[in-house]
């Protein structure tokens, strides 16, 4: 093997990006090795496998993986591939089983991955089969507030280090309550887009008043949603910050109103307000008063492919992505509130979502334009806000002066280069944790 190819696809001085990263098969193949083969990848949630022997079908990149909870309650991420010829040992979306049997020749694995039974061990294999070495291949598993991550890299740092200071912001959504959260879903659909177009869109609030104006307008009219305009976005005091590879936007919330989510309307707002006020003491205990009262996470993405909280952009070649959409609900919330959030999430951001419908053709044409002979040679311009970001006295990460900025996208592609150009994890920079995590909440929940 030669030395790792070095990619230089973004010019940090100008924000120009080589658009071949959205269409080139060879680059995609390297992404599967260097990024999806190494990073911590979101694969599921503990609430999807709540009981012992539960399992959930998921993916790490293109590799099918079984998230299982074994008989002792431990989580495993098992490559869904029989060690004989490679058939999947699980074909269902989820279920409960102590063993997974391959339908081809009957090899059976425990839900901890151990190869337990092989027909003909003596009669056909002469007792020469080394069963202990032929268990289902396992990834390392760690969790953050119930969200399950897995990595193939033995030398990856801890999940805590990988999330770094981003967790200081993520806690304000994912780690608020003692009882934790319940995942519902996913719905799944195939989009003709490069996975990165969906991920870098999460910091892109610039597009919202253009792409989503029709939906915002009717929702203002019918649901009393706050109106949406360029002016609102450009003047917004919300913040745009990049932390250790992860893109975060958040609102400084001086007015103690609940965090804005799809599902809040003039009808449901009283529910949200009542819940916000009732749970504030608990949230203050868990996250400290500053985060509980002042920091509300907005759109965000977790490197490499975790989108808007709990959605996964699963790569399917450079020109296609399988998008999995879950909703996460606080288990202790009243049913009416859970319903409002669920309905808001699916009705706006699902496959039929009023907002989501208008995104895909933008992303697909960005992807497709990267294929044609001339188009692929003309760089993207991601120059917005160049030079207008830096450290902030109160907030960890690289904070843009303005909410509407392309700084997070530029830094996402620089992070992409860091992974693609590294021979090993030792060469991938990880920003040290500097944030003060007040309160009792831990990475476990």
């Amino acid at each position, binding site marked *: 093997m030669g030395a790792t190819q070095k990619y230089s696809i973004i010019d940090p001085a100008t924000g120009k990006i080589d658009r071949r990263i959205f269409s080139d098969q060879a680059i995609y193949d390297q992404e599967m090795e260097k990024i999806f083969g190494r990073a911590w990848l979101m694969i599921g949630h503990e609430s999807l496998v709540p009981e012992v022997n539960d399992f959930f079908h998921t993916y790490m990149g293109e590799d099918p993986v079984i998230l299982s909870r074994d008989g002792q309650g431990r989580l495993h991420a098992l490559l869904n591939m029989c060690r004989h010829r490679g058939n999947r040992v699980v074909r269902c979306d989820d279920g409960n089983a102590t063993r997974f049997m391959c339908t081809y020749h009957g090899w059976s694995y425990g839900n901890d991955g151990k190869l337990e039974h092989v027909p003909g061990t003596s009669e056909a294999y002469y007792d020469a089969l080394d069963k202990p070495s032929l268990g289902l291949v396992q990834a390392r598993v760690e969790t953050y507030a119930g969200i399950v991550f897995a990595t193939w890299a033995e030398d990856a740092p801890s999940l805590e280090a990988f999330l770094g200071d981003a967790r200081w912001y993520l806690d304000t959504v994912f780690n608020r309550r003692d009882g934790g959260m319940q995942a519902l*879903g996913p719905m799944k659909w*195939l989009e003709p887009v490069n996975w990165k177009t969906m991920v870098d869109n999460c910091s892109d609030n610039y597009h919202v008043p253009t792409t989503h104006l029709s939906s915002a307008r009717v929702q203002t009219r019918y649901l009393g949603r706050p109106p949406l305009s360029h002016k609102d976005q450009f003047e917004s005091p919300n913040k745009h910050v990049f932390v250790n590879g992860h893109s975060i936007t958040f609102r400084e919330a001086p007015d103690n109103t609940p965090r804005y989510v799809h599902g809040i309307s003039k009808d449901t707002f009283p529910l949200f307000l009542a819940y916000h006020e009732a749970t504030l003491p608990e949230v203050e205990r868990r996250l400290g008063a500053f985060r509980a009262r002042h920091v509300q996470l907005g759109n965000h993405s977790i490197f490499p492919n975790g989108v808007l909280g709990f959605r996964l952009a699963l790569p399917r070649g450079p020109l296609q992505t399988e998008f999995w959409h879950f909703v996460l609900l606080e288990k202790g919330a009243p049913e009416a509130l859970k319903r409002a959030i669920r309905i808001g999430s*699916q009705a706006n951001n*699902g496959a*039929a979502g009023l907002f*989501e419908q*208008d995104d*895909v053709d933008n992303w697909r044409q960005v992807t497709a334009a990267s294929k044609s002979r001339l188009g692929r040679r003309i760089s993207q311009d991601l120059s917005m806000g160049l030079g207008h970001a830096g450290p902030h006295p109160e907030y960890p990460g690289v904070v843009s002066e303005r909410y509407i900025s392309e700084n997070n996208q530029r830094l996402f592609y620089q992070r992409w280069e860091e992974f693609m150009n590294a021979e090993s994890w030792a060469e991938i920079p990880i920003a040290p944790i500097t944030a003060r995590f007040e309160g009792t909440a831990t990475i476990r929940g």
Partner: protein
Amino acid sequence: MTVTARQALWLELMPFYIHEAWLLDERRFKEWLDLFTDDVLYFMPRRKNVLRREAHREVTPLGDLSLIEDDRRYLEMRVARLDTGMAWGEDPPSRTRHLIGNLVAEPLSKGEVKAKTAFLVYRSHLETDHQLLAGSREDVLRRVNGAWKISKRTILLDANVLLDKNLSIFL
């Protein structure tokens, strides 16, 4: 030849569903909305891959994450946004062809009827995007001022991973 009550119902509802299909394919969405009651629930659950012996878990129940779960207001919003001239996902609009068949209709109590139909809907959009969607609709209908209207529609799409770039058309 005499016609049974069930046959008479079928003869009334088949033209209703053909009319609905034409309204959708001709993009007459406001008139399509008029085919639903004010208290309508328009619901498309997810379908999971589960073993035959766990068939009760295949279709997600009301209350789980679903693809569509619209009341009248949400259906009106879907139609209203198309008129803004900025619904970019459907502007230029899709070309659709709804083929509806396999109608089975039976009366319920209190003048309501239950009707299920199967569909093949071909969708073509922009230059080469296309998808054939298949599935069924199970409807509850009642008369409002003499005309049939749908008070509940449950759409079972024949898909696990939806193969289309979005679900921006009506089924």
